[in-house]
């Protein structure tokens, strides 16, 4: 049975690695539903979060193939209950539509949204939450006239306790040679 998976992976900050990762998914005809890349808590280590829908067997196959890549440090595959995840969305709505009635007050209270900018022409609303919450708000705003709507990829942290730093340390300890020193942002 196909289901949604969040693949979180840590890579060296090298050019071309994203292309190698996406090629593995492309070959298996897996669509990347969302992707986010950023530097992780460890300096020089990039973190990628991807959302895919596929079978348990296939997600394991592609995860091991991704982990095999020389510049990939570690790959984690999570189902939704194992993670806490958020997306962020921006809605640009016509001021005329939104100003009518008590829309703005409702927005902030009910949907935990924020107003970023107000002009005579438009209002920009920001909301973070899960995919459904963001879609719900879009439905609410639609009648007011949505000029632009953009949502980010998913970012996620795991419910498990072990952190990447621990994995990196283990790897370094297993290696007898001169390991590179880790600088951790705090």
């Amino acid at each position: 049975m196909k289901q949604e998976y969040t693949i979180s992976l840590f890579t060296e900050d090298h050019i071309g690695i994203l292309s190698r990762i996406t090629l593995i998914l492309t070959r298996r005809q897996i669509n990347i539903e969302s992707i986010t890349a950023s530097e992780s808590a460890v300096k020089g280590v990039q973190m990628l979060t991807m959302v895919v829908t596929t079978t348990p067997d296939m997600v394991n196959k592609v995860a091991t193939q991704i982990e095999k890549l020389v510049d990939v440090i570690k790959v984690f595959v999570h189902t939704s209950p194992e993670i806490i995840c958020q997306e962020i969305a921006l809605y640009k709505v016509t001021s005329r539509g939104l100003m009518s009635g008590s829309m703005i007050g409702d927005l902030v209270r009910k949907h935990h949204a924020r107003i970023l900018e107000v002009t005579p022409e438009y209002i920009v609303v920001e909301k973070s939450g899960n995919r459904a919450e963001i879609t719900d708000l879009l439905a609410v705003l639609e009648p007011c006239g949505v000029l632009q709507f953009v949502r980010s990829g998913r970012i996620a942290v795991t419910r498990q306790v072990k952190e990447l730093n621990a994995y990196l340390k283990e790897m370094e300890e297993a290696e007898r040679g001169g390991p590179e020193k880790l600088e951790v942002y705090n």
Partner: protein
Amino acid sequence: MKEKTKTAGGQDMNNYEAEVTGAEALLKCLIEEGVDTIFGYPGGAIMPVYDKLLDYSDRLRHILTRHEQGAAHAAQAYAMVTGRPGVCFATSGPGATNLVTGIANAFLDSVPVVFITAQVTSGLIGTDAFQETDILGISTPVTKWNAQVKKAADIPDTIARAFYIARSGRPGPVLVDISKDAQFENLSYSYRKCTYIRSYNPVIPLHIRDIESAAVMINHADKPLILAGHGVILSGAADELKALAEKGGIPVAATLLGLPAFPQRHRLFAGMLGMHGNYAPNVLTNQADLIIAIGMRFDDRVTGNLKKYAPEARIIHIEIDKAEINKNVRVDLEINNDAREVLTALLPLLREKSREKWIREFRILDRVEYEKVIRPETEPGEGEIRMGEVVNTVSDITEGDAVIVTDVGQHQMAVARYYRFSEKSILVTSGGMGTMGFGLPASLGAASGNPGKPVIAFIGDGGFQMTLQELGTIMQYQIPVKIILLNNSFLGMVRQWQEMFFNGRYASTEMVNPDFVALAGAYGIQARSVTRREELSQAVGTMLAAEGPFLVEVAIGREANILPMVEPGASVSEVTLTYR
């Protein structure tokens, strides 16, 4: 060689480094890595490297092939013969793209080759400059790793990484793309071999509990079968495999690339697996109660229909590449480690057994295959010359002590089936990729590795004409390859499939061929043609006795088929011995 020493300021003589150009640094790095032979083809962007190559000609032999694809195949064959990474040079643009088939071929067969391509000057990269191509992007799906260098100072570290990655873990091709300005630029040269990359851990700790589980499974099995793949050869585990098989009385079947991993005259040798493999190992795969797969990846040509594969067996998979485990076949016990390490640890835990009853089942089926297929193929006595009897003749004369190179197609399967490989044999063939045109350039690469035994290339008339320009390379360097051209004036394997599965409609498989003996003669290569079976062994003898390169063209039956065959979609146990 002009090496200026940097003694500015503090006169720190203990720590001086030589100032050299990027091009020269590259060559020095190769020497540090033990390289003595490079296959390649020059062009505009790589000229600085070729210029320096003249200064290093005493330590680095460059073999100029007639096409970059040939250089790539030759470098791969060189690696397969010497056990050291092959090295291949090409220029930017078309030079680099011509390598792609060769890179992919090495990738699918896990052979370490370091490809060095030149790139246009860094300022022009991305502008569609003359002979610029995104070779990094193009080669990404078929390399284990690749990188671009735009500063001379980065050359030593990148080359060190390239060699480390190519040869460690599951070996494979890597590509380093060096811009022309980086080749000209000076750097302070020093070299340190790479032994560690944080994100890449080729050495896996051995889990003793898994080894113990494997031993229990093997000791309790009545009908175990070992499947030996290329990994056995790559990890140098042939002796350990033999010891293990002998102690446990376990028959050993091999994949195409695993054939030389086990001596074929050994009483425990079960034969080749797969589509054109032997009868017994295919049929008995589905009766085995335990399959011990070592350094192989359950390719579809080996397994046939996966739904009907090895239904009775539990499976132990010993494999260094974790991504291969559970990829095609679900296994019961995975041992993700180097074959030699695992077999060494496993051997003392194994109980001595003879399993004569199980082995006898192989012999019974062997007898059937011998009568129905092997004898008519290797000793037809009359009628057209058959591929099998040519291979058999060469096998008898060389007694396994040879480097056997093949191209791809029917003749390749004939070699795999009828050449009796031993511990002394090396097989250079294109397995995963099935690259026609591989044979001739691979043979010159193999012979350049000085294997100390004859290099014999079996090539069909189709594949030969894909890369026959390499006869020029063989001529120029007087490379002593012995070429057996099996000529049926057909693309034989495709014709066989047309006969069997497309109602005999021979679409574009018949070939009008040139006079191959005259062609070899034009390149100054001794050659003769064999049309009668009586001349065969004498011609092979003459060929092997000759000093330099030699070509024997054998006119074989035009419409012969390779059997047995596991037809597409069939189970391995449904292997057919006869066709209609």
